[in-house]
Structures are given as structure tokens and as C-alpha cells.
């Protein structure tokens, strides 16, 4: 589990894990196993109204719509993901 600042920075290539590692369910199924690039680092967000305690640092990760869903869409999809769901993408 990362520090408050988190282990990744803008521009890092990351992959979304396939399995739920920590019981934090907040990652959509469609994005699991896909690779993207960090565009925003939000850090640990204290959100008393929505959940007890703190979740790991949060990131916005950008994906190509066509890589996630196929098709020909030229558009981009940004998904907010907590650090426990991410791992560094292996360079291809």
C-alpha cells in the first residue's frame, strides 16, 4: 500500500489488476486487465460521508476507448482508480 502521495506520477504507464486485492470494490469490471497512463494524481482523499477510514491514493488513468471496447472510437476514457488496483505496466 502506498504512501499518502502515492507511488505513481503523471505520465506513468499502469495496468489495472484483474483481481480485487484488498476488498475495495471500486473498480469497474470493464477496465480490469487494461493498460493506461496516469493523467492526474489526487492523493489520499478523506471522504467521511462515503466511506469509513481512508482508501489508498487515487489516480485518474486515461485509456483509449477502442482498446477497452474495440470499435473505431477515437475518444478517450478517464477512469479514477485507487492505487491498490494498479501495477506498473511492463514495457512493451
Amino acid at each position: 500500500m502506498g504512501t499518502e502521495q502515492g507511488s505513481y506520477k503523471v505520465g506513468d504507464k499502469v495496468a489495472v489488476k484483474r483481481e480485487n486485492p484488498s476488498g475495495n470494490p471500486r473498480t469497474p469490471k470493464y477496465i480490469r486487465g487494461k493498460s493506461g497512463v496516469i493523467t492526474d494524481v489526487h492523493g489520499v482523499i478523506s471522504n467521511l460521508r462515503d466511506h469509513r477510514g481512508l482508501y489508498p491514493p487515487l489516480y485518474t488513468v486515461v485509456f483509449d476507448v477502442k482498446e477497452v471496447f474495440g470499435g473505431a472510437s477515437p475518444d478517450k476514457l478517464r477512469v479514477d482508480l485507487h492505487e491498490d488496483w494498479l501495477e506498473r505496466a511492463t514495457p512493451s
Partner: protein
Amino acid sequence: MSDSHMHDFEAHVRAVEEDLEYYRAKRIEPRIFTLLRRGFIEFTDLFNAAASSAKAADSNQGNGQEKDLESRVRALEDGLDDYVREIGLLTSSIGGAIDVVTEDSRVERGDYNEFFRLTHREYKGTLDERVRSLTEDVAKNRRVLEVLARALIQRGILREDVLNKNREALRQAGPWHGGKIVARCWVDPDFKSKLISQGRPALRELDIPPGRVGKLGVLENTESVHNVIVCTLCSCYPYDLLGDTPWWYKQDIYKKRVVADPRKILEEMFELKLPQKMEVRVYDSTSDVRYMVIPRRPKGTEGMKEEQLAKLVTIDSLIGAGEAIEPSQVGHVKETQWGHPKPRPRDY
């Protein structure tokens, strides 16, 4: 675990400290001084108003101690939100006749001379002690506001029936801050950059209750980028700020299609055709960052007043499922439950 909990509350308590101090020092006290200095009210009006108005507001004090810290922090945040709402209500009920410029000068900050620096309240001690002092101070600040309103009514500057009518309207209508926020962004680029970089704290100058669900993310639509938001896992949205989402936001058909082919769903469901060269960005959010979209300012609106501009902002446009409407469309599109125009999606 307990350590992370303390940390959790710390951020919330610090935010309340900053907000409360802001509203006291910049919104309310300067207004009272202006009213006194311009002769609208006298000090004795405030004493008389205090004597004649019931002290009902702090009747619930004292029973807070038995509750756990989390409930007390939540109650504190709710109290602050009510306070801010009352400030907005009072200001709008007076009709903007007495507006003040709040000084935020280098002199007051003590950049030139420590002697001139305004005193800021600090909250010290344990988290528990700070929550207790803050709870007392929110109640005190609300009392000041209540006395001020009473004095203005007794002086004939504020009409009680207008105040009550506005309060009732606010209760029934639910919040409609989206238009206000976007219109300010359109006319004030500094405010816009502050909102994008800071989120909720930037809203203080609009007398909008900061709200507390997650962090506010702000996405600006431009000539080259169109943002659209969704929460595929549930329906996260800054509802405390912007009101409830439109019904379709929670529908699976919207959630599924907007991530897989945003351009197509915008065209088919919302009759919004975007140029090929415009980049479409979909944001799938969690509850931790809740997004709103700043739609593009419609053409031909130069010189329009902020309150007129606010009417061009639709609920759909705050999500990116529509654009702000043209001035000629005001009143010609279907009304929403909040009394503001919203074009309907075409089918489903």
C-alpha cells in the same frame, strides 16, 4: 487503523476551521461594519434585536458530547452548511442593495506592517477539543446572523415575509448552484482557474455551502475538448452542490453506452453532434472525486449579466450531455423540477 481515522477527521475539521473563519471574517463581519458605518443600522439595533429574538438556535447544545467523534464532525459540517445557506439567503433577500467589498489587502495580511494584521481565530488542542470549540463557534456565528436579520427586519431594510418566502422556495426547489458557478466562470477567468485547481474552497465567494461529499473535480469544455461524466459503478455526482442528477444518469443504458462510444450516445440520446476534430473525454468517477462540467459559453452572450447567463446552464450541460442553451431558448425548452430549462434526451 485508528491512526488513519484520526487523519480522516483531521482533514474535515481543518476544512471547517478554514471555512468558518472565511465566512466570519470576510462575509459577515464586514457586512455588519458596512451597515453600521453607512448608517443603515446602529449598534443599539443589534442589542435590541438580540434581546427580542428567541435563543432557540442553540437548544441542542450540550447533548453532542455523548455522540462519537464522527457524528459530531458530521453535525459540525451540516451546521456550517446551514450557516452558509443562511448567509446566501439573507444576502439575496435584501436584494443586493447593500453589497460590500470585502477587503483582502496586503495591509490586512501584515505584508507591510504586522501592526495592521487582522486577527484570525485559531483552534488548538486535541481533535476532540477543536470539534467542541468549532461547534460552539458555528452556533455563535449563526446567532450573530440571526440577530443581524432581526435588526434589518426591525429597521425595515429586510422584509420578513420575503425572507420566509425565499427560505421556503429554497427548501422546495433544492439547490441550483450549477448556473451560478458556471456563469461566474464565464465572466471571471480567475475564479474559473481557482475552481479548477482548488475545487470546493473556491465556491466560498458565491455563498454556496461547501458540501462534503468527496473532492470536487471541475472539467472545462473548450473548442477542442468535450468532457462528459458518468459513474458506472453507481451514480456518484456532486449532488450536495448541484442537486440530484437527472434520472437518466442512473440508467444502465447511459452508463454502458457512454463509456463504450461516447460520441454516438451523445448524438443519439441527447442530439448533441460534436465535430470530428473535437476530442471527447469520458470521466468514469468514484465517490472520492465528483466531477462537474463547465459547458462552453454560447455565442452572442457577450455583455449579458451573470444572473442571465446562469439561466443558460442546464443540468445536462453540467454533465456534458448537452451544451448551454442559447438566450433565445430560455423559456422554450422543457422545465426541470428545479424550474430551470433542460432539454430532454430524445428516447429511452
